[in-house]
C-alpha cells in the first residue's frame, strides 16, 4: 500500500457496504483528507471514518424504511393465523382432498406446490396491502410496477423456503410436527407463542423486509414520468 493510498479494503467497504445511492463525493472527501496528511494515524482515522459512514448509511436507511419495517413485523405476526386458515381450507376443500388420492410422486409434488404457493400468497398479499395504499396516495399506482414490486421478494423467498424444504426432505423434520392445526382457530393462532408459530413468523419476517425494502425505490415517482 502506498502512503498516499488509503487501505484498499476500507475503500472497497465504503463503496460496496454503504446502503443507498453511492456517495462519490463522500469517498472523494475522505481520500482528499487522507492524502492531505492529517497525521501518522491517518490509516486509523480512515478506517474510523469508513465505519462511521457505513453505520450512518444504515441508520439513514432504517429511518427511511421505518414504516416498511413496522409493517413487516406486524404482518409476519399474523402468519400463524394464515397457516391455520389455509390448513382449514385444505381440509374442507374437496378439490384439495383429491390431491391426496393421487399416486406418488404427484401427491407429494402437489403438496409441495400448495405449501409454496400459500406461503407466497401470504407474502404477496402483505406486500400488496402495504404498497397499494402508498402508490395510490402518491398517485403513482400502476399494475406493472406493483407486479415488479411483488417479484422483488422472490430471491429471498426462494432462499428461505429452501431451508424448511431441505429439512423435510433430508431429515424428515417439519416445524410444528405434533400440532394439529385443525384444532386451532386463526384468532388463537395470532397469540400463539409456541415454537411452530415463532418459526413461522421468523420465516416470513426477512422475506417481507427484503421485499418491501427492495420495492420502496419503485414507489418514488420520477419528476414528470411514470415510476421506474
Amino acid at each position, binding site marked *: 500500500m502506498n502512503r498516499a493510498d488509503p487501505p484498499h479494503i476500507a475503500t472497497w467497504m465504503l463503496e460496496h457496504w454503504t446502503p443507498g445511492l453511492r456517495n462519490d463525493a463522500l469517498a472523494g472527501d475522505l481520500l482528499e*483528507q487522507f492524502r492531505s496528511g492529517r497525521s501518522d494515524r491517518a490509516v486509523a482515522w480512515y478506517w474510523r*471514518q469508513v465505519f*462511521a459512514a457505513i453505520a450512518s448509511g444504515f441508520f*439513514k436507511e432504517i429511518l427511511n424504511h421505518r414504516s416498511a419495517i413496522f409493517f413487516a413485523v406486524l404482518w409476519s405476526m399474523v402468519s400463524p393465523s394464515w397457516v391455520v386458515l389455509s390448513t382449514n381450507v385444505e381440509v374442507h376443500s374437496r378439490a384439495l382432498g383429491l390431491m391426496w388420492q393421487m399416486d406418488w410422486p404427484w401427491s407429494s409434488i402437489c403438496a409441495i406446490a400448495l405449501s409454496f404457493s400459500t406461503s407466497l400468497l401470504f407474502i404477496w398479499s402483505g406486500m400488496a396491502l402495504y404498497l397499494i395504499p402508498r402508490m395510490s396516495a402518491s398517485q403513482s399506482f400502476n399494475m406493472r410496477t406493483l407486479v415488479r414490486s411483488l417479484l422483488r421478494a422472490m430471491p429471498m423467498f426462494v432462499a428461505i423456503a429452501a431451508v424448511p424444504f431441505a429439512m423435510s426432505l433430508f431429515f424428515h423434520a417439519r416445524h410444528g410436527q405434533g400440532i394439529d392445526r385443525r384444532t386451532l382457530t386463526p384468532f388463537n393462532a395470532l397469540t400463539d407463542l409456541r415454537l411452530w408459530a415463532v418459526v413461522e413468523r421468523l420465516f416470513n419476517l426477512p422475506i417481507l423486509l427484503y421485499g418491501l425494502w427492495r420495492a420502496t425505490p419503485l414507489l418514488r415517482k420520477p419528476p414528470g414520468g411514470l415510476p421506474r
Partner: protein
Amino acid sequence: MADRNYLGEFELMILLAVIRLEEEAYGVPICRELEAHRGRDVSVGSVYAALERLEAKGLVSSSLGDSTPERGGKAKRYFRVTSTGLRQVHETRRVLSKLWHALPKLKENV
C-alpha cells in the same frame, strides 16, 4: 408566522459553516471548520447525513463540481444555504438568544 421546525445543534453548526465558507463549502472544508470550532474529530459520514437531511428540508442546495486527481477522480459536492435555510438560522438564533438572556447569571465554572 415563523416556521416552528427549529434546527438541531449539529444542523445549525453545519449551516453556519456552509454560510461562512461561501463558495468553498464542500465536505472537506465543512468538516475542518467544524473540527476547528468543536475541538474534536467529525465523522464525514454524519456531516453528509445531516447535509442530506437539510437538503431534503430545502435548507441547503447542492451541485457537483469538477473531479480532481487528489480525490481519485471523484467530484466535489458544493453546498449553498437557501433563503429558507438562512431564515431558519436567524429564527433559531433569535429564539436561542432570547432563552439565554432569560437565564439567571451562570457561574463561570458551570
